[in-house]
């Protein structure tokens, strides 16, 4: 989009995102990623293969979290704990790289943002108070998932009959459910006539509209991201800022699709990833100061910002005068 920048991370990220989408699509046609080997099948790294894909051998880890909350009461929540442990280890090792490098939700949102950019429609800029409010929504959704799933599973409470309707509370409002159920029915992979998931379809529409206008709209409220954000502070990959080199030009905050204030505000600590950074590297690409922002893994800088220069591509807008000659 911009032909004047320091680093160029976007192509690499695009390739990675396409891989992520292909991953889900391959599951859609029934090729298991980890194989159907019994042990491997039960390892649920954060992935986005939806349970509502008929042929998918594994499922999204958030489904497993909900399932574990409901089913776990008989087995001392052992499955859930193992799952959470696996998730925590994955977050420590991979951080939120998942969100903007692999997650299909992220890819679709960026596609919508890109279309919006082509149409020259400005992105919606939220006020600071609203941004902070949205940030809390993801924890609220996480909390609601637990508070709804947990009592349903405990038979002594006598509300087990809700299992058929209220188990998997988040899946009922997840846009992926709407998308996959409808698309499978349209493609004829699943028979018509099963009840239509109205809630999920509405949230799918909301997802499409909101992320068209607001950059990374869904990421701001995603409870899966919320769960990752809880452990984000201890993850090895992070966004590093050298406050000694920051000139407070505010480019990082302007280009950040998550409107992550910390990258601009923080002037003391090196780790500016915090809860909201999805490590997309947009700010690293455009930060005009040499070595001020870096995507860092543990002690190693993967990529650091550098002084912007003209890139070889340019938009047709540029085909006017050259060098004033």
């Amino acid at each position, binding site marked *: 989009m911009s032909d*004047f920048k320091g680093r160029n991370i976007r192509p690499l990220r695009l390739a990675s995102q396409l891989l992520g989408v292909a991953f889900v699509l391959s599951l859609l046609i029934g090729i298991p990623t980890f194989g159907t080997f019994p042990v491997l099948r039960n390892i649920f790294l954060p992935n986005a293969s939806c349970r509502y894909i008929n042929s998918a051998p594994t499922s999204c880890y958030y489904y497993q979290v909900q399932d574990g909350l409901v089913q776990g009461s008989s087995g001392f929540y052992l499955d859930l704990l193992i799952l959470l442990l696996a998730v925590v280890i994955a977050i420590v090792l991979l951080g939120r790289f998942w969100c903007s490098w692999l997650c299909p939700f992220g890819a679709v949102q960026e596609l919508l943002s890109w279309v919006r950019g082509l149409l020259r429609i400005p992105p919606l800029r939220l006020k600071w108070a609203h941004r902070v409010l949205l940030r809390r929504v993801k924890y609220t959704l996480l909390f609601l998932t637990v508070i709804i799933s947990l009592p349903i599973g405990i038979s002594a409470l006598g509300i087990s009959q809700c299992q058929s309707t209220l188990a998997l509370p988040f899946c009922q409002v997840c846009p992926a459910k709407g998308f996959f159920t409808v698309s499978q029915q349209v493609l004829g992979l699943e028979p018509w006539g099963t009840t239509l998931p109205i809630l999920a379809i509405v949230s799918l529409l909301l997802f499409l509209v909101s992320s068209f206008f607001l950059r990374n709209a869904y990421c701001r409220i995603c409870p899966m991201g919320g769960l990752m954000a809880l452990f984000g502070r201890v993850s090895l990959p992070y966004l590093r800022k050298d406050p000694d080199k920051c000139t407070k*030009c*505010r480019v990082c905050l302007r280009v950040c699709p998550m409107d992550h204030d910390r990258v601009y505000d923080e002037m003391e600590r090196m780790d500016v990833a915090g809860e909201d950074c999805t490590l997309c590297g947009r700010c690293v690409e455009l930060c005009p100061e040499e070595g001020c922002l870096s995507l860092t893994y543990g002690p190693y800088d993967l990529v650091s910002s550098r002084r912007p220069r003209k890139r070889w591509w340019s938009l047709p*807008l540029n085909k006017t005068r050259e060098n*004033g000659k």
Partner: protein
Amino acid sequence: MNGATKDTDRKRPRYISDRKGFFSAEQAERTRKRSREMEKKVRTRLSSAKGRAKALAYFDELMRYDGVRAVELKEFREKGGKVVGTLCVMVPLELIEASGAKHIRLCSGYYEPVHPANELLGDAGLCPLVKSTLGSKMVSSDPLVDMADMVAGPATCDGKMKLAEMLEDWVPVVMMNLPRVKLGGTSSELWLNEVLHLKRKLSELTGRKVTKKALVERIRKWNEASELWNKVCDLRKGKDPPISGQDAMLVVQASQSDDIDRWVVKVRELLKELEEKVRSGGSVAEKGSARILLMGSPMIYPNFKIPSIVEESGGSIVTDELCTGFRLMADPVLLDDLSEKEIYSALADRYYFPCSCPCFSPNDERLTRLFNAITTFGVDGVVFHSLRGCHLNNLEATKIELALRERGIPMVKLESEYDEGDVEQVRTRVEAFVEMLKARRKK
């Protein structure tokens, strides 16, 4: 604050009701003559420097009193073109160019026009830069300043703010309400609206709509210019700087009044010559000179008093933290989204947030920039210059001196006026400072 000249004529002047009769023709002539003499002296001194790059001759010609630029602009105006004067570095020049107008920097570095302004204001404590700018408009001593059809004046310091108000007696002024408290979202929004207001005023002036296409094209050009300027500055990081601090300031100040397309071509030539010079080991600084960072109040050509004293006393100015130097073009406009709203917001942010003018608070980024420059340019000592009556820089000097002391970097604070009277006094102090730096390094 109406853009049309007719209305301003009808409006009663705030300061001088009898504009024509206030000064004698002799006084105006004297001011012009002395300004010309002063500029000639400075230019001769600059161009006679040893080992000076040949490509700099263009910038001499451009910035000289009564030089080619004034003639060019006169022709441009006769053809119906409009010229906009700017008072501070926060005015987006890309926008002025995109509207089809040309820009000149009004801030004056001539000593003589201070006197007519003094006669009117009678305030000896006021910043001489403000007085000189006002004076050159009052007696129309500077042909370049006379070219302005409109003035864009951000309300930065008190002096500049009232200067813009006073200039309204002569020329239409667009005051820009610069949020001096940098808060983030709210100040960014206010400043964006001020920039959009300037855009409307420019369209009224030139009768042309500022198109997005033209603006993006201009932003690209200025980004190219900024890239080149940064490259020139990079060459000064080495042991042998190929360009003196004064010449570098001359080059970057020329961008404020020149056509940027031509400036880019000329600076590219200059860069080629300088790179050649670095390769062959040429240097403008004498051997073992102390590496100096210059900061403080603006130093507008031809008021190169302080830098010339520093460089004549065995110091070598390797970088600066001045709104008339490095800071002027250090930052590019980084476009992320090409919708109209986002382009203007990127433009407004570029001229607001990275600016470390002392009129802002908080202004910690000035210290960050300073320390960053000290490490990357290998600076031995800092010369802090403040014009008489520049309270903001005076106040910040203390903060900066204390912060520098913590890091063991010596700083000297100089105060100067717009006249030659204090040259020797300043020279003694600077010489002692430079000697001290050299002795420190030997240890």
